């Protein structure tokens, strides 16, 4: 009986009707220990078992491959959202911890430039891309990753520009239309001007030979006219 008065951790206690915001004093008070000793024969004993680390690891790996109903539903919801919005660009980024207000403002600024920022669990994203060409790249969906989505290729330029300014988000992988782009290629693409600007440049380059030809013929005609005028003037003065 005296031994039972000693504080015991394995005895399950009744639900307390007090706030859970403060720590229960350990060891428990004398009266409490008397109560626990008295009800111990009635309370079921909690059996402790020691799991080997290899088995624990195996269980963790199995659990990570199994999906609960809500995880499957969330993955389906994310997939439907990506298809509905018709995103063509996906950037997988490493995101470091950042204050909520900073992240909120950054997200809003990115949204104005057509970049949508989302944070989903790696398990969910692996399920989203299951059965797609990106399934083999599930190593990218690990750790604290966040995802940037865009609807057209100009998003890549904005992503490079915005992520270079910030030190808490680092792009790891770029996907565009199901293809993986290297970081060097994306940086080159980012240095190019807008698509409209490039189109205008192409049109001006294509029309350049025609306009130079026209200028050449014009020059010849003008020169001929000038020569004849000057000859006529010389004849008149004589």
């Amino acid at each position, binding site marked *: 009986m005296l031994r039972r008065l000693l504080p015991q951790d394995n005895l399950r206690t009744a639900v307390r009707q007090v706030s859970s915001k403060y720590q229960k004093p350990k060891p428990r008070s004398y009266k409490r220990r008397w109560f626990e000793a008295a009800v111990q024969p009635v309370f079921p004993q909690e059996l402790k078992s020691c799991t080997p680390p290899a088995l624990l690891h195996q269980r963790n790996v199995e659990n990570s491959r199994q999906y609960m109903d809500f995880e499957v539903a969330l993955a389906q919801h994310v997939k439907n959202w990506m298809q509905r919005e018709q995103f063509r660009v996906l950037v997988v980024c490493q995101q470091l911890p950042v204050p909520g207000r900073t992240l*909120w*403002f950054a*997200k*809003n*600024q*990115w*949204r*104005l430039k057509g970049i949508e920022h989302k944070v989903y669990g790696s398990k969910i994203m692996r399920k989203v891309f299951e059965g797609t060409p990106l399934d083999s790249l599930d190593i990218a969906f690990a750790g604290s990753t966040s995802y940037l989505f865009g609807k057209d290729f100009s998003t890549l330029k904005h992503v490079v520009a915005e992520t270079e300014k910030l030190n808490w988000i680092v792009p790891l992988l770029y996907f565009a239309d199901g293809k993986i782009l290297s970081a060097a290629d994306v940086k080159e693409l980012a240095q190019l001007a807008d698509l409209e600007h490039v189109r205008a440049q192409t049109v001006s380059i294509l029309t350049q030979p025609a306009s130079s030809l026209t200028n050449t013929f014009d020059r010849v005609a003008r020169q001929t006219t000038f020569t004849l005028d000057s000859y006529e003037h010389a004849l008149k003065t004589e």
Partner: protein
Amino acid sequence: MATKAATRVRKKEVVKVVHGALLRTHIKAGMASAAPPLGPQLGQRGVNVANFCKEFNKETGHIKPGVPLPTRINVKPDRSYDLEICSPTTSWLLKQAAGIRRGRQFYGEVAGKISVKHVYEIALIKSKDRALVGVPLEEICRKIIIQSRSIGIEVQKEDLDPELLKQFLAERSGTVAKQLAELAEKKAAKMLRTG
């Protein structure tokens, strides 16, 4: 005797409280003054209260006096400050739209009624805030509807019928008067008990 004298002489150690640089508060438009609670909050952070009140009242001169405005004051180490004044609080805008002054007292009570057009107009006002620039209007409307539920204001898709609304507001004013009378009675009873 000696210990009593010793305890009388011993003074409490005064710990200087260092207040955070950010002060988030609601200040009524055109009514900033050095009175508590604003005066002590600013004074503890080393801000010149008189200058602050002058600047705030000048910046909110175009707004109807008494409108609660969420304000963020970031006090720098050199005692200068950055002042950010946001649009009026959503709860105030909702109550103005519903024509009421008091929200619900218990769960399930309907304190007022507005339509989705009111929600849209309120969302347009709130979308100009710095924290909501870039947020889709749909998202802002959702947040406003969630807040209206917590105040007890019902949002309906159809336009409000003036006759029904008048009847509702008349009934509501009676309910509010009863609730306030009950609260006043409880307070008076407590005062009598505690003396």
